[in-house]
């Protein structure tokens, strides 16, 4: 009887020791995020207007052969999460006569990533031209632009000339 009791107690003690350990459980959670190429083009002061009045300044502009519109108008704001390209083209002028689309020039005064000669005034055309590009993503990159319109006493009749310029921002490559 004594031996049996001792054995029983030993078994109980062994079991007590065995069950003194703590318990732990784990679960996993997988998070998957798929990001596609993104590009966002913002524009400030999109519409620009200039009026040449009958004064000596207008005569000077005709003599110089061009009028520069307000600086930093429009200003483009670029966001992209990979390699990107900014292009521009124009629909051409509507006005008293079919003024040449090349008479509309554009300059991009951004400190970075301007390409294809647009760091200075360059003529636009009906065909898309690269204005700026970069091999990686950018955030809130400003491109302050400015228009310049060529003037010619012999061709530019009095009247109102309007042109639409389309800016396109696109991501590039695989």
């Amino acid at each position, binding site marked *: 009887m004594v031996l049996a009791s001792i054995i029983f107690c030993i078994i109980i003690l062994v079991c007590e020791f065995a069950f003194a350990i703590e318990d732990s459980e784990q679960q996993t959670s997988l*998070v998957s995020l798929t990001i596609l190429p993104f590009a966002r083009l913002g524009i400030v002061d999109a519409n620009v207007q200039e009026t040449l009045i009958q004064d000596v300044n207008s005569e000077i502009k005709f003599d110089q052969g061009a009028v520069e519109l307000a600086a930093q108008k429009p200003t483009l704001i670029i966001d992209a999460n990979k390699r990107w390209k900014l292009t521009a083209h124009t629909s051409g002028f509507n006005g008293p006569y079919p003024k040449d689309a090349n008479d509309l020039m554009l300059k991009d005064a951004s400190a970075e990533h301007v390409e294809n000669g647009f760091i200075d005034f360059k003529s636009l055309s009906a065909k898309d031209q690269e204005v700026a590009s970069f091999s990686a993503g950018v955030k809130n990159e400003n491109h302050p632009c400015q228009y310049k319109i060529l003037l010619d006493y012999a061709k530019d009749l009095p009247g109102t000339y309007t042109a639409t310029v389309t800016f396109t921002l696109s991501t590039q490559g695989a």
Partner: protein
Amino acid sequence: MIIKKALLLHAKVIILLLPLLCFCSPLFAATTNTGEFALDIPSISKLSIQDADQVINLIQGASGEAAYEAGYVEAEPAKPKLVVDANANWKLSVSAMMEWDLVGNYQKAVSDLLLKVSSTAGHQTGFGSFAPISLLDQEIASSASGADNENYNCIYRILLNWQKDIPGVYVIILTYTLSTQPT
């Protein structure tokens, strides 16, 4: 599961040994014995998870761009949902199992994954607002007593950066751990 098996074995051993112990006594026929039954309950905890895996697709459109502009994208609320059961003092914690999978050569920071947890159980100790995940275990909740079906609703937020987060598929695995604690 192992502890359940051990408990069952424990009970079986006692049941099997009782008659043996009785027959070992030469005075069995002449005496009366009072029967004893011992039930040992170990520390037991159970962690359940619902909607464990979260898949987020940033679509090309206003919502995707808006997410980048906001600087983050959020997964659906209350996903995953953790359910805690424990019969002793316990702790619920979370950590990242490893870094994000590489996208090209880009290694997204683990801390770009934020977690927010909400619970009405009254035992939450962390992640009451969005806080970054790390490779180290961080406590979500704990209690000095047991818990019965305590719900912890999680929501993930992933930080986005135009200049860093290139297109691709980003994957990371989190580990939630529920453990009973030594007294």
